[in-house]
């Protein structure tokens, strides 16, 4: 046991200032979460309730095992777009009848639960999580289909929705659809493709074409119930496996279905007795300085996240700008890579490569704690082969088959974002702290680079350089890049799985590791050719 010590002084002005800055950012995030929670707004929520219907989150709460935790994914999807924050869909992982399930619920208060481009991205991400981690999928369906004004961005890629359901089924992942209302036209294939279908008397409506469309197509007179009512599907078409009396009953049946899946987790079991960290999670608020140019020691974070603050550091004396080491979180072993001073040099890249190989040898999941400005540039470093070494690290990260979890604490710039397993590298989960920023480089640097390039260009052409215009340009670019590197913006684009309160980090990683353990955890010996 190697318990980390802390150098943090929670009473220092610096810590207090950091905490205050973090709280302000958290308040901002909470405001945006509140928008997702209210969905279509009070009026539509009230109307939905008046119809005797439950809200998406109320359905989820009923479905979950009482008092069990629920990890909502991508709650900010669609932020900064023309669509409602949350994208008319609630997704997350929760425990149903003792089984961790991926739950997807349409929010019918938002334009009838219609699918917009962000809904689609969010639902793809949810299915990806289910598929990668082998989680049963429960869809709580009530959607009016595609958002017609944006159908061009929904229709063609949206076909993947149905493909994903049946591929999950083929992969042995149970799929359950509980139809609370409309699930018509293309939406009809959601129950159509699912392994288990529950419909609700007088509520579910599942057909390819409604009465007007049928009238147009064939001239046949029909009604909703005969075309797609729950009774009809349960007794005549056989599309519904269970006929529920009401929403509660449908959820009850859904829970019974899960309890009969005979579900066995394929991954490792956690240690039975877990010790909490030695230091207060509350202090996680004050570790990251508001100005990311100031480095911070990620070991202070690790000390507040891992079991018993117990961390065995690997190669502590080599490549010290990246800390690597072994720990357990909620009883699951992990290898941790954490940037200590932002820049990655050749030594850090090589150390990371070796560490990732070791984790694959021992089937140990990896946790990446981001605060990187990227790989070092400069003549000396280029000549020493920083590209080769960075490529080694990216090779290792890309081909590693143990599960990865990324937490963006501070900066995550440039190729450093890739080497530390950014979104494109398929970490099983990626969450950002409100303090995080991610872009090709820092906003000031990016603006500076553009300025230098245009100054050079002007000089080459022998033209005078407009200093005032340059200053204005720099300001504009800096502001734009700053805005586009913030977590709200990135989360809105579904580039992460959510912006989290730093104090929840341990809980969320523990949650993810447990979800991950539904699928086998297996490393690889197969990597790309390492350019040595």
């Amino acid at each position: 046991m190697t318990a980390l010590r802390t150098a943090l002084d929670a009473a220092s002005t610096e810590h207090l200032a950091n905490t205050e800055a973090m709280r302000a950012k958290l308040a901002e995030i909470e405001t945006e979460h509140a928008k997702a929670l209210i969905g279509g707004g009070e009026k539509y929520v009230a109307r939905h309730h008046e119809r005797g219907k439950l809200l998406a989150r109320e359905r989820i709460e009923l479905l979950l095992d009482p008092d069990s935790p629920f990890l909502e994914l991508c709650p900010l999807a669609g932020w900064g777009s023309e669509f409602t924050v949350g994208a008319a869909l609630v997704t997350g992982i929760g425990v149903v009848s003792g089984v961790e399930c991926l739950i997807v619920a349409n929010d019918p208060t938002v334009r009838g639960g219609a699918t917009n481009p962000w809904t689609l991205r969010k639902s793809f991400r949810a299915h990806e999580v289910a598929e990668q981690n082998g989680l049963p999928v429960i869809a709580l369906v009530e959607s009016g289909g595609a958002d017609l004004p944006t159908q061009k961005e929904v229709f063609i890629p949206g076909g993947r929705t149905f493909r994903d359901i049946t591929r999950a089924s083929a992969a042995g992942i149970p799929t359950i659809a509980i139809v609370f209302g409309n699930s018509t036209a293309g939406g009809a294939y959601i129950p159509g493709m699912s392994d288990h279908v529950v419909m609700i008397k007088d509520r579910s409506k599942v057909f390819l074409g409604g009465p007007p469309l049928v009238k147009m197509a064939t001239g046949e007179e029909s009604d909703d119930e005969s075309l797609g009512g729950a009774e009809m599907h349960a007794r005549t078409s056989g599309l519904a496996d269970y006929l529920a009396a009401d929403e509660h009953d449908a959820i009850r049946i859904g829970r019974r279905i899960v309890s009969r899946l005979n579900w066995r987790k394929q991954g490792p079991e956690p240690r039975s007795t877990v010790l909490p960290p030695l230091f207060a999670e509350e202090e996680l608020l004050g570790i990251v300085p508001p100005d990311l140019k100031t480095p911070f020691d990620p070991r202070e974070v690790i000390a507040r996240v891992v079991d018993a603050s117990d961390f065995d550091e690997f190669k502590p004396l080599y490549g010290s700008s990246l800390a690597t080491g072994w720990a357990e979180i909620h009883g699951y072993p992990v290898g941790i890579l954490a940037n200590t001073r932002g820049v990655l040099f050749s030594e850090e890249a090589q150390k990371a490569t070796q560490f990732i190989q070791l984790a694959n040898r021992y089937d140990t999941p990896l946790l990446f704690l981001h605060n990187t400005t990227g790989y070092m540039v400069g003549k000396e470093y280029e000549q020493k082969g920083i590209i080769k070494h960075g490529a080694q690290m990216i090779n290792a990260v890309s081909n590693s088959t143990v599960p990865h979890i990324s937490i963006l604490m501070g900066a995550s710039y440039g190729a450093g974002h890739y080497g530390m397993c950014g979104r494109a590298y398929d970490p099983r989960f990626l969450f950002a702290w409100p303090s995080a920023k991610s872009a090709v480089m820092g906003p000031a640097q990016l603006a500076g680079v553009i300025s230098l390039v245009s100054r050079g260009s002007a000089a080459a052409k022998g033209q005078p350089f407009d200093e005032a215009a340059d200053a204005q340009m720099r300001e504009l670019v800096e502001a734009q890049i700053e805005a586009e590197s913030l977590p709200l913006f990135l989360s809105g684009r579904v580039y992460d799985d959510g912006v989290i309160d730093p104090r929840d980090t341990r809980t969320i990683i523990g949650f993810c590791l447990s979800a991950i353990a539904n699928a086998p955890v297996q490393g690889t010996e197969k990597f790309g050719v390492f350019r040595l």
Partner: protein
Amino acid sequence: MADFTTADFDKTADFATGPLNTVLVANRGEIARRVFATCRRLGYGTVAVFSDADSDAVHAREADVAVRLPGTTSAETYLRSDLLIAAALAAGADAVHPGYGFLSEKEDFAQAVVDAGLRWLGPPPSAIAAMGSKVAAKKMMAAAGVPVLRELSADEVGEADLPVLIKASAGGGGRGMRVVRSLAELPGQWDAAQAEAASAFGDGTVFCEQYIETGRHIEVQVLADAHGTVWAVGERECSIQRRHQKVVEEAPSPFVQAHPELREKLFAAARDAAAVIGYVGAGTVEFLVAPDGSFAFLEMNTRLQVEHPVTELTTGLDLVAWQLRIAAGEALPASGEPGTCASAIEVRLYAEDPAKDWQPASGTLHRFAVPGVSCEFEVVETATRTEPLLRLDSGVESGSVVGVYYDPMLAKVIAWAPRRAEAARVLASALAGSEIHGVVTNRDLLVNVLRHPAFLAGDTDTAFFSTHGLDVLAAPLASPETERISALAGALAVAATHRAEASVLGGLPSGWRNVPSQAQRRVLAAGASEYEVRYRFGRDGLVASGFDGVGLVSATPAEVVLDIKGLRRAFRVGRHADAVVVDSPLGSVAFTVVPTFTDPADAVAAGSLLAPMPGSVVRLGVAGVGDVVEAGQPILWLEAMKMEHQVSAPVAGVLSALPVSIGSQVEVGTVLAVVAVVEEGESA
């Protein structure tokens, strides 16, 4: 003391010689255990008998040998003298102890035991016979100079005699007694009492005597050996009664303490009563004492009394041990009657609901724990003791099933203390702190009585419940606010259970959400009240709507500690399937967790009549489905605990279902009938 010997009456003749090594107790529950306890202490072997309903009962388990009595009803089992004697012989018992109730006062049984060559651990059959008929016994007592109440025949009762009490001559334990307050109702009650006595005791003889409303029931314990010595071993007061059955008993009597000159008169009368019938063994002579101190002989119980422990704790005598010694021919010591010391109070814990007309309760007693018990079934010497003492004589333990076939008494709890007020306080606090889960009991009533100023003042008479109001005395200890806060504690304990039992993610915070949208919801029902508890655990602790100022200190499945506006209180929680019982010094509250989901197939139709208790359907008040019924019209009668309970239509309507028939055995909650309300304009 008075030695009473009759030279021409050799009482040892009734007591067969030969070894006395093994005792069969022809009884069940706490009294069987009580006798076994002394037997074990004195080295006797023990034999239990058990009915099929009692096959897992404690008394059957702890004897050396247990003999099955096939069947469940008393008539099939504990009242079958042939089976009991056969059991004694088969198990090698050489003595039979009858306990109380059942066959304890049947001289035929006593005689059959003796005839089978076994010892009868009770008085001679002739003494039982002498007291068996209350009418005859009174005459005999009057002749011996013991004061008795004048007996009245039905036609000689006048307005001045009212109220009067009709009693069954062969009755006991309060059964078959009727109070008559007007001459008009006398003939009807007389006939009814005769019918009841005939069916219950096989003897329809009833008699009538003046009813003393505010009298006190004071009795004297006697011990008589076979050599002519009769001891009066202290008096007991058992005035607090329900339906003529004792609930609280104590020694000494507060009334006698206040009127010490009365004691020797009562003792002398008791000795005389025992002597005149040649009594041998332990017995009790019961008197009714009027407020002016005059008293009259009521009856003599020719057996060990339920309330004998208060005498044991105040005298130090093990009465069961003396029953055995006397049966073996031993004489009472020459040292004479023991003195009594300090004060002992016994309460009878019944499985019954005092607020619902004393309706007997049944079910599984999931947990039964009385705190601070010093001894069980044990006679502790108190002469030099200064610390209070708590004795438990229980027929049940955690997990026992309380059935409908026998007396609903679960246990007796007895406190002894140097002062009466201390004994009452110790007993009340032990009862209040007891964990009694799964079965409704009279516990709260007992605590209310023990804490009542009139009780503490010694102001007890047989009208105690009506004088002070059953609504007050049977009120739950837990106030409405306690019930509400207990619901919160219960919900939090259930949450802790959920977390402890979680197969995945059990180590994560309870109900954790990264995007909290709503609270956890749990509905707990206590009787007719439903409590919807909404709670969430935020970073600053518990957030529960309607519970401002209430903080959570700790929660486990078994205990929840709350900080209620600065007062830290611990709530012990027992969970048994859907039942959640929350115990605290504020009172015990039994909840049922209302399930979140109900299978529509299990839903109970509106207008359903559910069985209020387990029992069997004895009569129907309707012809069948389709009958038009008025609100309040009897639909059927359920028999439980030998009492008939009427089940009536709650509303006017049409009987749409009647899933039971005469003879159906039903559990609590069984649908007995469904009454469909007929809408106006709709034809029936």
